[in-house]
């Protein structure tokens, strides 16, 4: 089929698209040369042909498949590349309990330790009474200083408030024997007969002159009746009871409240669990 004015456009389009055989391409060129008025038509169609741009795909590295290299990679390294779900931290009862106990212990030491330190600075240790009794004979101390017995009383009071104190006794006359620091202080009622016969006192071996023995006011004001002495029972569970732990003096009421709170806390945790 030859190119003419009726079918030239189809040939031109096929020529632009390079769909013509070499012979047909030559025929198109000859037609244009023979008919210059159609050269502009062919030129306009040529303009519709796009010129390829140089556009590079930048992420070719992600497209390559390298099974040989991939096979050489250790499985541990491959696993690191995967996302891993983080493990949730489960609340632990033991952990909380330990933390609570440590906190309470720290507060206990910080709060009460300071109180112990302050109390310890003005503390009169009960050893004082034993030292006095060891150094001096009871009768000699009475001879030298009438207030010696009072000092012994004060020392005994500081030793323990819960124990029967000499001060609480209602006996008219008494003499304190503090032979050993570890022994409990014993009070003996002293009657008029005993005072007239000092040798009958159970713990005094040396003869004591009654006039020299009682220079103090308490002794001089002692009644002369011979009734049996009565003792007042001291409540050992009183609120201001003191507990000794090494060099620390612990307030009994505070310690009891603290232990109750600890018990309540542990019971609640057990019920929650």
């Amino acid at each position, binding site marked *: 089929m030859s190119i003419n004015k009726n079918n030239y456009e189809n040939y031109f389009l096929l020529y632009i*698209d390079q*769909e013509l055989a070499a012979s047909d391409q030559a025929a198109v060129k000859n037609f244009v040369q023979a008919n210059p008025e159609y050269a502009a038509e062919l030129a306009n169609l040529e303009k519709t042909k*796009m010129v*390829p741009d140089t*556009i590079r*795909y930048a992420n070719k590295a992600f497209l390559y498949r390298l099974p040989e290299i991939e096979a050489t990679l250790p499985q541990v390294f491959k696993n690191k590349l995967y996302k891993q779900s983080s493990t949730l931290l489960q609340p632990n009862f033991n952990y909380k309990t330990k933390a609570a106990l440590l906190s309470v212990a720290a507060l206990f030491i910080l709060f009460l330790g300071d109180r112990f330190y302050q109390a310890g600075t003005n503390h009169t240790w009960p050893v004082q009474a034993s030292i006095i009794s060891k150094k001096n004979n009871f009768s000699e101390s009475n001879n030298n200083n009438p207030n010696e017995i009072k000092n012994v009383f004060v020392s005994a009071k500081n030793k323990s408030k819960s124990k029967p104190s000499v001060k609480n006794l209602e006996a008219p006359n008494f003499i304190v024997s503090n032979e050993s620091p570890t022994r409990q202080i014993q009070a003996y009622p002293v009657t008029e007969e005993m005072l007239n016969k000092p040798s009958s006192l159970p713990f005094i071996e040396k003869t004591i002159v009654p006039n020299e023995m009682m220079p103090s006011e308490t002794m001089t004001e002692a009644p002369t009746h011979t009734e049996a002495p009565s003792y007042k029972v001291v409540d050992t569970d009183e609120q201001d009871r003191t507990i000794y732990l090494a060099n620390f003096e612990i307030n009994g009421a505070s310690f009891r409240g603290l232990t109750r709170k600890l018990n309540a806390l542990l019971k609640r945790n057990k019920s929650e669990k």
Partner: protein
Amino acid sequence: MRDIEFNNCVDEHADGVYRFILKNIGHVEDAQDIVQTSFEKLWVNRNKVEPQKAKSYLFTVAYHQMIDHIRKEKKATVTDSYEEVSAKATYQKDPELKQLLLAAINELNPTQKSLVLLKDYEGYTYQEIGEIMNLSESQVKVYLHRARIFLKEKLVHLEKAAN
């Protein structure tokens, strides 16, 4: 297809597939995703695809991915990024004519635009384009000729308006 042949396909055809998709949809990220998907499918079907038909397979997959993308996004027109990418082209025969041609191509429908790009950029025959776009050879010929005539008239009109 072995892995070495697949990597050769990446070297030879990745740029062409990317350019074809980018010129059609105008979005760099979307074009990259489509290219990546195309090569993923080629890798999955590497045992079924002959190495000499890998290029046609890649363009076929990429074209259908692009059509799906256009249908989803309803982007039949080229956006600003298309102009930016085109402006960065290293080869420009006639900058003014090129801009006019790009403006005219933007007015083509997606099928005609793909036909022009596959024909001019990749040099596919009508038959190959028909295989890629799932069209008959005569359909490719008619659609492409209509697109050429439209572009010619548009260019003449734009040149007259510019002058």
